[in-house]
């Protein structure tokens, strides 16, 4: 009598089971591949119409007095300037506040304090951008901007930028906090061990050790601020078009707000000149910018990240 030898087929399970396993794999794989398809579709749908736009429009109109799509003035630099202003203001608001909250929560707050504070920050993260746009227009603009600056109009890029800044504070805070808490305790202990105080430990050990995550938080926040649509559409005011301006106290349009205003009037402009196609051109520029930022953030984090 020989001992039963275990064959490979005994371990593989029966054919039906393997077939089912393969089917599940195919279904799941196609779901993952769908994301690639969506990415490709975005590029395709943008590129063809954007090309139509570029071939129809006179190229001098692309660098003219401002962005008035219904009068065939398509100065892209107006929109880029508006986007830069709003993003800059938003970062000035969000980075110090978000980073401060993150450092406090990660390094100073007691566990009980954290349990109270974290949900509060998450409430802020859960507020829809349309509510913040309304808040920027009806509260920030009269109570903050009008009081401390002298804007020419109640609708201006500054109040929109502050609104976007408030919107991205939770984003900065949560990514930064994750990065700070990922720094191992041993580094802090070593720092205390050589006699450093808390402030020295935080500023010279923990923050430098977490720098890759902090930069990632910054880039993600910039990308989000550039893509933010509703706050700027509601609060920055220039609905029909905008002259080129570099002042945050003026009315203005960002790339996203310009797209929103063109898209909202689609029925009136369909079929008349390249106004409608300009939507796709701006969309392509926007897509390229955010994609570049995301890729840069990804690379940066991969390169700087230190494995502990």
């Amino acid at each position: 009598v020989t001992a039963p030898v275990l064959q490979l087929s005994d371990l593989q399970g029966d054919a039906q089971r393997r077939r089912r396993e393969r089917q599940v794999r195919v279904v799941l794989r196609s779901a993952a591949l769908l994301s690639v398809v969506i990415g490709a579709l975005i590029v395709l749908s943008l590129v063809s119409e954007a090309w139509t736009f570029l071939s129809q429009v006179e190229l001098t109109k692309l660098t003219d007095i401002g962005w008035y799509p219904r009068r065939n003035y398509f100065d892209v630099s107006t929109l880029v300037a508006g986007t830069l202003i709003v993003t800059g203001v938003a970062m000035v608001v969000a980075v110090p506040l978000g980073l401060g909250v993150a450092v406090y929560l990660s390094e100073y707050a007691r566990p009980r304090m954290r349990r109270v504070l974290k949900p509060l920050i998450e409430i802020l993260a859960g507020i829809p951008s349309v509510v913040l746009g309304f808040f920027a227009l009806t509260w920030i603009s009269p109570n903050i901007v009008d009081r401390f600056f002298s804007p020419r109009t109640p609708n201006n890029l500054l109040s929109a930028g502050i609104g976007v800044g408030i919107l991205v504070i939770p984003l900065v805070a949560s990514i930064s906090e994750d990065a700070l808490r990922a720094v191992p305790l041993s580094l802090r202990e070593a720092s205390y061990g050589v006699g450093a105080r808390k402030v020295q430990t935080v500023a010279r050990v923990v923050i430098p050790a977490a720098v890759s995550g902090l930069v990632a938080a910054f880039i993600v926040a910039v990308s989000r601020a550039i893509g933010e649509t509703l706050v700027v559409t509601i609060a920055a005011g220039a609905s029909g078009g905008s002259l080129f301006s570099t002042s945050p106290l003026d009315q203005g349009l960002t790339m996203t707000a310009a797209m929103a205003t063109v898209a909202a009037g689609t029925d009136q402009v369909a079929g008349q000149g390249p106004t409608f196609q300009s939507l796709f051109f701006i969309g392509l520029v926007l897509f390229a910018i955010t994609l570049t930022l995301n890729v840069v953030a990804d690379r940066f984090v991969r390169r700087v990240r230190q494995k502990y």
Partner: protein
Amino acid sequence: MALASASTERTVLAGLQQRRADLKGLVFQGLLMATLLVVLLVLFVLLSDVVRESTAVLGERPGGFLTGAVNFTNPAENGIRQGIVGSVVIGLIVMVTAIPLGVAAAIYLEEYARPTRFTRFVDVNIRNLAGVPSIVYGILGFTIFVKALDGMTGGRSLLAGALTRCGKRASASAPPAGRWSVTTCCPTRCRASSPGRCSRSPVPSAKRRRSSSSGRRPGSSRTPPASSNASAVDSPPCR
């Protein structure tokens, strides 16, 4: 004892016992608390402003405002029923379509796919899609659902945005160290941890692997693919 002179002893003792005020530290902590207070203040002002302005309308006609139809000619009669219904319907459509797709994609990437270059491409692609502004998805939705599939609305492009967001959320939720070690028959087992946990608790991967495999039901054990043990050792770092 005799080695240290009395004055040295005094100096050391003073250094150990004296509580010198750490001014810089206090200022730093004060600044941090100030930022926290500003953020909480913003939240408070925002919420109270919204509540104060909305109670004016809701207090006047609580039922009529919520259930009334849109009425542009007479603001006093305007209602938001249509808005509420629209939001709920969009939410339901997204739930039914985007969550299964996103979770399926996440399960594939975390549990099935070998770490090839293509898998990394899909992974990076999903993360990039999550960063694309919603208005660009709006254009995609317009192109597909309004122009290509004539007669449908562009609103359904919310699907695409929610899909990628969901996919990103879900793919971030698996602990990376355990991703290649759990066999394919229990893909949900290692998904119990919350997003972001991987970056917080630097548990050695060996420990986590042991805990995830010991949690497996005995009946469901089967031979893992030959590559699974090898790749568990050098699984990619957490994102």
